[in-house]
């Protein structure tokens, strides 16, 4: 049975696209058939993060509008053969997407894949609303910082009221992915701690992704951290999160690239 997962946040720049790509790779490497779908129409980026920017010919809008078949628009990853990408349009705007069209495309994707991961645009307007509309479950990406937590709270409210699942009276499963986490600053008391964020948002924790320069390097190369640097701290954190998505129980660890005292201090279990 296919799972449609939306990666959303409200606030911009918190790590939705990075997380979509990294989790997509991790799930696909475990043998699952995965498609990652870019809903950020007009400002597409998932193709760049995946290193597929030179392969995009047709996009989500072409498929929604019937100008291309789904099979023509799906870009099969050259490194992980169970992973595909459906890019957003760079030249159109989100008004070219209709609810009916998105519902139809998501329905077609459900038949071909085990996981359909939707990379939401920032904000709470039409683009974000469409990305979450037909999802079965959500990953709420949050940075440990006041405005991000507030926006996540707003998004959680929308997930519980505006999605097709919510409208049918069903419960939307939501999990928190805390990204750009800096254990040193958290310990110093200058950053919200995991427990603080969890208490405020009261949804279960999917993972803690440390702030790491490996993420920047990965985007330069067009290869998500889980592929380009699989033993790095953020990659290990994403692999753990992907296992939890599949229902496995994995101890919650703040992974660290530092091998010295700090690494030992902060690489310990936190839950």
């Amino acid at each position, binding site marked *: 049975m296919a799972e449609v997962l939306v990666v959303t946040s409200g606030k911009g720049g918190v790590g939705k696209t990075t997380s979509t790509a990294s989790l997509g790779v991790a799930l696909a490497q475990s043998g699952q058939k995965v498609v990652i779908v870019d809903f950020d129409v007009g400002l597409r980026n998932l193709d760049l993060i995946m290193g597929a920017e*030179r392969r995009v*010919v*047709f996009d989500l809008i072409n498929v929604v509008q019937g100008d291309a078949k789904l099979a*023509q628009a799906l870009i*099969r990853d050259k490194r992980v*053969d169970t992973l595909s990408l459906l890019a957003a349009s*760079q030249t159109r705007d989100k008004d070219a997407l209709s609810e009916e069209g998105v519902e139809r495309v998501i329905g077609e994707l459900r038949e071909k894949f085990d996981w359909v991961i939707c990379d939401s645009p920032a904000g709470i307007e039409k683009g974000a609303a469409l990305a979450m509309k037909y999802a079965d479950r959500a990953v709420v990406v949050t940075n440990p910082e006041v405005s991000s937590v507030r926006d996540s709270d707003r998004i959680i409210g929308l997930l519980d009221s505006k999605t097709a699942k919510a409208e049918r009276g069903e419960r939307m499963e939501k999990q928190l992915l805390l990204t750009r986490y800096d254990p040193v600053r958290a310990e110093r008391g200058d950053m919200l701690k995991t427990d603080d964020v969890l208490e405020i948002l009261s949804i279960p924790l999917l993972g803690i992704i440390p702030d790491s320069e490996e993420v920047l390097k990965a985007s*330069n*190369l*067009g290869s998500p951290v889980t592929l380009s640097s699989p033993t790095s701290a953020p990659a290990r954190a994403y692999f753990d999160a992907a296992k939890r998505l599949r229902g496995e129980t994995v101890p919650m660890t703040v992974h660290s690239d530092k091998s010295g005292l700090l690494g030992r201090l902060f690489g310990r279990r936190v839950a």
Partner: protein
Amino acid sequence: MSLFGFLTRRSTAPVARDRLQILLSHERAFVGGNDLAATLQEEILRVIAKHIAIDRDKVKVNLDRGESFSTLEIDVEMPTDEEVRARA
């Protein structure tokens, strides 16, 4: 490898710069909408991609405007059979 190869070997920024240069030179021309070669390239690519899975850079379109006549050069590098099968 140069003497300082060990310093530059692992840097990723040059890769990012190259990727952006290739991508943006095309996007600017096409999104601007007034570059005939870019528009032709995009539409020709779409016609081909409807039937064959092909990478963007395998379709090259060159427009040469001369005094008395202009030429439109279209160069398509066909994927191998294996590549076609892999993407089917």
